[in-house]
């Protein structure tokens, strides 16, 4: 059995996963570019709901990072930086894209993840 993973993961603000009508559909751009998505909690959630979800996001990022997967941040979420710091992970390269082309260009400019090189080796 093959494995099609890209070794590329984007932390994505909710508004790019569930865009308002006419807004940028970040999920579609990321899917087309072959990036996996880790969705960040909706901004509408109060801190007591969002915080434990962000803790889990950060723990999973830490696991991916140790294995050489690439990360980017699309949009933002209050509390994310603190959660990543608590897990010992730096905030990845970030963008708040205004268009699909801008997001696509940003993704294309990312370096090849170390995990890809390891998998090929």
């Amino acid at each position, binding site marked *: 059995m093959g494995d099609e993973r890209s070794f590329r993961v984007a932390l994505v603000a909710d508004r790019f996963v569930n865009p308002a009508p006419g807004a940028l559909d970040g*999920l579609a751009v990321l899917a087309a570019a072959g990036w996996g998505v880790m969705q960040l909690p909706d901004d509408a959630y109060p801190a007591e709901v969002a915080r434990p979800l962000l803790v889990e996001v950060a723990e999973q990022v830490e696991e991916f990072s140790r294995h050489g997967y690439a990360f980017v941040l699309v949009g933002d979420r209050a509390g994310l930086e603190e959660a990543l710091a608590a897990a010992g992970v730096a905030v990845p390269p970030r963008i708040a894209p205004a268009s699909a082309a801008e997001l696509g260009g940003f993704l294309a400019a990312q370096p090849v993840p170390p995990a890809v090189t390891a998998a090929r080796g």
Partner: protein
Amino acid sequence: MGVAFVAHCLLNQNSKVREGAHCAGVYSPIVDVLRAEGWRIEQMPCPELAFAGLNRFWAVREQYDTAAFRRHCRRLATAVAGAIAARAEQGEDVVLVGVQGSPSMGVTITSSDPERGGRPAWPEGTPEHTSGEGIFVEELHAELDRRGIAFRVAGETHALATHDDDDQRARLQAVLRAGGG
């Protein structure tokens, strides 16, 4: 219409056990149906990723059914249930979209083999599939029951020998529409 809480790997196939990723990142067949039906998408954490890591072996339910993994799943379930409760309080319909055959994320089909253990060596195929919930779904189910929150379930079926894209789509659509929204 409502909110679909989906298994982590449906948006991020990088979380799959090795040799388990069906595509590069987002598993679009499920996403496309949810969006076409007008549902919000919210991603749940992957119970196996943070607990057993990216180098974990393929496993059946019995191998994960330990006090430590259940404690981990209850922690995740409490976090997810908080988000589900916030949606339910607004009167939104909730559907859990799991992964059929998964020891953690199966919603009506999980995997079972009481004899499995030791040095990993087993033939191709999926003879371990059996009716039931995966461990995380079981813990989330219990937490939502405790909170009195109603929900429906659907499952991605790629791991099943009977998988068919059209059938998977039709079953998901039927579950989404069952609420009358």
